[in-house]
C-alpha cells in the first residue's frame, strides 16, 4: 500500500460520502414531502407541496445514481458485497423511486387516476426512505463476508436495529419535508407544515438518541471509538452540538421563523452523518473491509478523478443557480 493509493482511496471515500450527503440533503426534503403527502388536503395544498419540489427533485435523485456509479467504480468489492447483502431493501428502494418519479408526471397528465398516483407518490416515497434507513442500519450492524463475497442469507439485514434506523430516516425526512414547506409556502399549507414540524422533530430527535445508544451496544469497536479516552473529548462534541441545534430548532419553530427551521434540520442531519462517519471510518463494511481493501486500483481511481474534479463543481454550480432561480414562495400554480 503506497502513499498514492492511501490518498486516493480516502479522496474517493470523501467524494462518495459527499455524494451521499448531497443526496440526503436534496432528496431528503422531497421524499419527506412524499411521506407527509397523505396529511395534506386534496387540491390546493397537495398541488402546492408538489410544485415546491417539481423543478428540483429529478436533479436531486441523480446524486443517488452518482453515489451508486461512483461506489462501483471506486470501491467495486464493497459495491458488490453491500448490494448483495441488502438485496431486498435496495430493490424495494429503486422500485419506490421509480414509482414516485413517474407519479410526479402522471399526476398531471392522467388526472382521471390522480388518487392512485397520489397513493403511488406517497407509498413510493415512504418505501424508498424506509429502505434507505434499513440499508444504513444493516450496514452498521455488520455484513458477513467470506472470500470476497457476501456470506449471509437474504434476510440477514432484517433486525430490530435496522427497522429502527428505517423508521428513523422516515421521521427525519418528514422533518426535512415539513421545514422545507415552512420555508417555501405560505397560507394553509405553511400552517399545516408548522403543525407537522413539531411531532416530526420530536420523533427525529428520539430516533437519533435511540439509534446512537443502540449503535454503541452493537459492537465493542463502536463503543471504543466513541467513549475511549482521549477520543471522547472530540466525539462528545457531536451530541453536544446536536443538543444545541435541537434547542435552536425548537426556538425557531416557536418564533415561527421561516427559513431557519429547514437549515437547522439539515444541521441535525449533518451531525448524524458526522457521527456515522466516526463510527465507520476507515471501514466501508464495518470490521470487514477498509476503504483500502475495497478500493479499485489507483489507475482506475485516477482516471475517474479527472472527470469528477471537472464535472462535479460544474454540476454543483448549476444546482446552486437553479435553487437561486427558484427562490421565494410557491403556490398551487407554481413558483412566482
Amino acid at each position: 500500500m503506497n502513499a498514492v493509493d492511501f490518498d486516493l482511496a480516502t479522496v474517493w471515500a470523501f467524494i462518495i460520502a459527499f455524494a451521499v450527503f448531497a443526496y440526503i440533503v436534496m432528496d431528503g426534503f422531497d421524499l419527506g414531502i412524499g411521506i407527509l403527502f397523505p396529511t395534506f388536503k386534496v387540491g390546493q395544498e397537495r398541488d402546492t407541496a408538489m410544485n415546491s419540489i417539481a423543478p428540483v427533485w429529478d436533479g436531486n435523485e441523480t446524486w443517488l445514481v452518482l453515489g451508486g456509479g461512483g461506489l462501483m467504480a471506486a470501491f467495486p468489492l464493497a459495491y458488490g458485497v453491500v448490494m448483495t447483502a441488502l438485496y431486498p431493501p435496495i430493490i424495494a428502494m429503486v422500485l419506490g423511486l421509480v414509482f414516485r418519479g413517474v407519479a410526479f408526471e402522471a399526476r398531471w397528465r392522467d388526472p382521471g387516476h390522480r388518487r392512485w398516483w397520489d397513493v403511488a407518490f406517497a407509498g413510493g416515497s415512504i418505501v424508498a426512505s424506509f429502505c434507505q434507513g434499513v440499508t444504513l442500519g444493516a450496514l452498521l450492524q455488520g455484513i458477513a463476508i467470506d472470500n470476497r463475497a457476501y456470506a449471509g442469507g437474504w434476510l440477514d439485514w432484517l433486525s430490530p436495529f435496522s427497522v429502527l434506523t428505517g423508521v428513523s430516516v422516515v421521521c427525519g425526512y418528514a422533518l426535512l419535508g415539513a421545514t422545507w414547506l415552512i420555508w417555501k409556502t405560505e397560507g394553509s399549507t405553511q400552517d399545516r407544515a408548522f403543525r407537522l414540524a413539531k411531532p416530526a422533530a420530536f420523533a427525529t430527535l428520539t430516533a437519533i438518541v435511540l439509534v446512537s445508544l443502540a449503535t454503541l451496544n452493537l459492537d465493542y469497536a463502536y463503543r471504543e471509538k466513541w467513549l475511549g479516552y482521549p477520543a471522547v473529548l472530540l466525539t462528545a462534541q457531536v451530541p453536544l452540538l446536536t443538543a444545541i441545534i435541537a434547542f435552536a430548532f425548537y426556538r425557531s419553530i416557536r418564533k415561527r421563523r421561516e427559513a431557519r427551521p429547514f437549515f437547522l434540520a439539515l444541521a441535525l442531519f449533518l451531525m448524524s452523518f458526522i457521527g456515522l462517519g466516526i463510527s465507520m471510518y476507515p471501514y466501508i463494511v464495518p470490521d470487514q473491509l477498509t476503504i483500502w481493501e475495497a478500493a479499485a486500483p489507483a489507475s482506475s481511481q485516477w482516471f475517474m478523478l479527472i472527470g469528477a474534479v471537472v464535472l462535479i463543481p460544474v454540476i454543483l454550480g448549476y444546482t446552486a443557480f437553479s435553487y437561486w432561480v427558484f427562490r421565494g414562495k410557491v403556490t398551487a400554480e407554481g413558483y412566482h
Partner: protein
Amino acid sequence: MFEGLDPILLARIQFAFTVSFHFVFPAFSIGLASYLAVLEALWLKTGKPIYLDLFKYWVKIFAVAFAMGVVSGIVMSYQFGTNWAVFSDKAGPIIGPLMAYEVLTAFFLEAGFLGVMLFGMNKVGKGLHFASTLAVAIGTLISATWILSANSWMHTPVGFEINEAGQFVPGGSWWTIVFNPSFPYRLTHTVIAAYLTTAFVVGAVGAWHLLKDRTDPHARKMFSMAMWMAAIVAPVQIVAGDLHGLNTLEHQPAKVMAMEGHYQSHPDGAPLILFGIPNAAEKRVDYAVQIPKASSLILKHDADAPLAGLDTIPPQDQPPVGIVFWSFRIMVGMGMAMLGMGVWSLFARYRKRLYDWPLLHRAALAMGPSGFVAVLAGWVTTEVGRQPFTVYRFLRTAHSASPLEAPAVGASLIAFVIVYFAVFGFGTWYILKLMAKGAHSGEHHIDIDAPIRTAGITPGPAQHPEGGR
C-alpha cells in the same frame, strides 16, 4: 415458489427485462435529440414556421422519453451490484470508471442544457437555444459512447491484467480499453440503429396523420423527412452491420456460428441458411432453406473459403444457438423491411405519390415500432451470443452472479415486471396520446397542460407559468 429454479437464470431474465425496458427509451431519445437539432437548424436557416412547429411538437415527446430513460436508468446503476456482485468486484476497476463517465455526462446534460432546450425558448436568444439543443444531441451521443465502450469491452476485452485478487485491472493505457476492438463498430451500428428507430417512429406518426388528412402540411413534412432517412440510412446500416459482423467473426467466431446456424464446419464453402429450425440435440438445422456457399462469400468474400463451425468450439464455451439464430433473423428481417420502405418511398416520390398513396402510409404506420424490434433483437443477438461469458473468454456468467437464493431473485423479478408495466405502460400511453394529437401551426409550448415536469433541474416556466404559452 422459486425453490426449483436456478437463481442465476432468474437474475439473467431480470437483467434482460430491465435493460430492454431501459434501452427502448434511449434508443428513441438519441435519434430524437438529433432530429430536434436538425429541425431547429432548418428553422433558423429557412425561417419557415413549420420547422418550429415540428420542433415544439417533438420536444414534448422527447421530454417524456428522456424522463423515462432516466427513471429506468436508476435501476441499472444498482443492479450490477445487487445481482452481479462478483462481476462488479472483478470487472469494476475497468467497467466502473467507464460507467461513471456515462453517469457524469448524463448528469451534466440534465443539469444544464436540457432545461434550456425544453423550457428556454422564450428566455434565451435563438443562438444560445440552438447551442443547447445541439449540446443535448451531442451529449446523448457521448453518453452512448461511454456505455457502449463498457459493453464492447465485455465482448472484446483488451488492455488489462488480472491481479492476485482475480480482478481485471488496467494494464497500460486507458485508450486501449476505451477503444477496444469491437467498440467503433458497435457504436456506429447502435447509433445508426437509434436514428432509424426514430425515423420510423416519426414516419409512422406522419403516416397516421396523412391517412386522416393527406393535405396536413406538418404530417407531410414529417413523413417526407422520415422517408429520406429510411432511404439513405437503411442501406448505410446494412453496410455497418456487415462490417460489425466481420469484426465479430474475427473476435467472437462462436457468436457468428450461432447466428449462422453452423453447427458443423464447412471446409469448402459454407451455405447461408435463410430459414430453418435449429436442433440443438442433433446439432443441425432442420428444414433449412439455404444458399450454397453464400455464407463464405459474405463472411470471407470467397465462395470456397472454409468456415469453421461450432464443432470446433468446446461444448462448455458455446452460446445457445436457437435464441441467437432467431433474434439475428428478426433483426436482419427488420433491416430489409426498412430498406424496402426506403426504396418504396423513393419510387413514390418519383411517381409524385408520396403523400397520396394510402397503402404506403399504412405500411409506414405498421413499420413504426420496427426500429425497437430490430434494436432489441440485435442486443439479444450480441449479448446471448457472448454467452456463456460476461467478459468474453475470461469470466463466465455462472461465476459472475451474486450469491443470492432463488426466492429473493424471483420475488424481485415479479416486482419489476409489475412496476415496469404499470409505470412505463403509463409513459408509453402518454407518448402515444401526444402522437395521436398531431402537430399544428403555432404549436403550443411544452408546459401548456402542467406546471411540472420530470426533466431535470430547470429554471423554466415553473417560475413564470404563463411565460411559455
